[in-house]
């Protein structure tokens, strides 16, 4: 496995990636601001949406059987899967029983998470991704780099080259020409497919509706034309009522793409269309672990809008592939301890500067920065042994320096004197510890905090409070 530092260095040095990320994320942020300005208050909308998601997660054990009963009663088959292997096996069984040779798959994060594409292919079913971005990364044998924009890391020239080499589409750098060419090539595939696989944005327990959100129409094409429709959902995607679904739809597109609404939202009733079979596969794959993990349960509120990725300064520099698994960005860090493969659980939480931009952007109020701190705690058993040893050594030294008033004062004094007398050597030493290699470490203050604090306590109370208040606000 590549070391995380090497991966980050490689991504930072990739000029094409840096340009692609800066261009795309800039556009998304601008559009999002415009879309959010149409709400009376983003804070109030977050409050409304987070109440809906909070309540839905708290009531999972009640809402899931309610959803199942609505669906089964009307003829939709409901299958449950504890893990990725079980979920894939169940979908492969459906394909085998119906001798499915060709299947269209619309963009689904949970299908990506469980590796459904590869499982179907291994079982002899050809899988064609029908979302434009997903199709490009499928042809490039890559992973999506963003939750809502799978080929965000690629320039039009790279997309054109991939489509030309792997799919025979005429070489071009024009996004419009490329998009239309892919759509034209996929048109007969939809009519030919024997099965359509999709994700689910929400499932409504009260009525049994499955809610699918998209812009291109590929998902609609899939479930409209194929005789078998398999929908795969993470178990947390259930909501209590249609009104709750409406609340979430009002913030989802605005947060995700800066649109007030996506072009298409399908609310499929619990009764399948005449002449069609429908399956819903409810996947756990670590979600119940997150449910039982105290405050980490909040990560199940996520609606996969990708707003936290768009706001994250680390994602903006390293892109989605640096995170090493399906879910990149801040939400990827908090989901990794439960849903992620063991090889990413160790270091992924270090891809965060704890600036809190993700928390401010989240439309369902997930305290992502707080959860990332907790995720760092959970990452310990999966971290490389030498990194853990180094950290332990440092903490032992740090603990010794901080372990008493005298030692604390002496370490401070030592640092200040070293900084004043040997500034260059001190900087070199700090850089060798790996912390200040790419940024300047702040110089020690001329006056110790403790001394300043003591002074402030001696000020007249009114002045002292004002001073302290001013500092808090700053």
């Amino acid at each position: 496995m590549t070391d995380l530092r090497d991966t980050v260095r490689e991504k930072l040095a990739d000029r094409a990636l840096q340009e692609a990320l800066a261009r795309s994320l800039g556009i998304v942020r601008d559009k999002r601001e415009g879309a959010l300005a149409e709400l009376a208050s983003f804070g109030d909308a977050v409050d409304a949406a987070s109440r809906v998601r909070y309540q839905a997660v708290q009531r999972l054990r009640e809402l899931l059987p309610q959803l199942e009963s609505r669906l089964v009663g009307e003829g939709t088959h409901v299958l449950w899967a504890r893990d990725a292997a079980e979920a894939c096996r169940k979908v492969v069984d459906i394909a085998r029983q119906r001798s499915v040779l060709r299947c269209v798959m619309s963009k689904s994060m949970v299908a990506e998470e469980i590796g459904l594409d590869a499982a179907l292919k291994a079982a002899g079913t050809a899988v064609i991704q029908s979302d434009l971005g997903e199709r490009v990364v499928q042809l490039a044998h890559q992973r999506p780099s963003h939750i809502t924009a799978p080929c965000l890391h690629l320039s039009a020239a790279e997309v054109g080259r991939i489509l030309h080499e792997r799919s025979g589409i005429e070489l071009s750098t024009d996004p419009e020409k490329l998009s239309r060419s892919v759509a034209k090539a996929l048109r007969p595939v939809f009519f030919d497919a024997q099965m359509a696989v999709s994700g689910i944005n929400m499932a409504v327990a009260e009525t049994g509706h499955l809610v699918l959100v998209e812009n291109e129409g590929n998902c609609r094409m899939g479930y409209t034309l194929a005789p078998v429709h398999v929908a795969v959902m993470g178990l947390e995607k259930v909501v209590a009522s249609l009104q709750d679904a409406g609340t979430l739809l009002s913030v989802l597109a605005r947060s995700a793409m800066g649109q007030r609404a996506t072009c298409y939202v399908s609310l499929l009733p619990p009764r399948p269309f005449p002449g069609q079979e429908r399956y819903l596969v409810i996947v756990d794959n670590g979600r119940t672990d997150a449910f039982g993990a105290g405050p980490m349960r909040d990560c199940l509120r996520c609606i996969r809008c990708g707003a936290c990725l768009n706001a994250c300064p680390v994602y903006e520099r390293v892109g989605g592939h640096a995170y090493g698994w399906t879910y990149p960005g801040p939400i990827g860090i908090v989901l990794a301890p439960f849903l992620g493969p063991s090889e990413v659980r160790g270091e992924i939480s270090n891809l965060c500067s704890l600036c809190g931009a993700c928390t401010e952007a989240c439309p369902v109020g997930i305290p992502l920065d707080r959860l990332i701190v907790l995720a760092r705690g959970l990452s310990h058993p999966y971290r490389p042994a030498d990194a853990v040893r180094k950290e332990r050594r440092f903490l032992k030294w740090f603990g010794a320096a901080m372990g008493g008033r005298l030692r604390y004062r002496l370490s401070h004094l030592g640092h200040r004197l070293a900084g004043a007398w040997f500034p260059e050597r001190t900087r070199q030493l700090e850089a060798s510890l790996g912390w200040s290699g790419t940024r300047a470490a702040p110089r020690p203050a001329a006056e110790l905090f403790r001394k300043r604090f003591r002074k402030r306590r001696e000020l007249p109370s009114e002045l002292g409070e004002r001073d302290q208040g001013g500092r808090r606000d700053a």
Partner: protein
Amino acid sequence: MTREQKPRQRRSDDPREEILERLATAYKAADEATVGRTRIAYATEPGSDPEALLALARERFENQEVGYHILPGWDSLLDTLANHLYSRQARRVAVQSCELFDRLGLVQALAGRVPDLCVLGPGAGLDEIAAADVGITTCEAVIAQTGTLVLNGIERSTLGLSLLGGVHFCVAAVRQLVPDLEGWLSGRPAWFPDEACILVSGPSRTADIEKTVVIGVHGPWKVSLFLVKE
């Protein structure tokens, strides 16, 4: 080297039982607090005033590239539709089977008004609909806040009318305008449990390549709404 992830012990042969049991076990220690729901408010709230709703909807349509035509009455609908089909040089048009279009005699009227036009009525298959230049549907409601058309249907062929052709024409009455989705879903109509509901907020689009918006991908490249004042 990282330490290996331990495979989870299976508690039951039935995944459903095991998943629900895991949730129930974790729930015992959980916070039982319930929170009320609040409604999302918008910067522009037109209320139920038809003129304000129409003004807001028009602004949204323009912004989302939904063509709209406001007609004074049903009498003018047939001629307007025929003119649009003629100007687009449409050769095949697929029409939804519904009470309104039956009452207006839409299939016969279009066939009579546009020369060489093949009008596919009820019973057209998905392949035939896909070969049509234009699909014509009604809708259940028009959501002003998001410029969204609410379509419904039980049959896949009905839903295909707004998806498979290059152009989608939709007919609605001004009285069908409603303020927002959340409110409309809370007072859902009687057909809702059985029929699929599709919310259409403009022509099919993508911005997957360099965030450049391309209109008309898998679905129609043009959506036009004919809003009739009664």
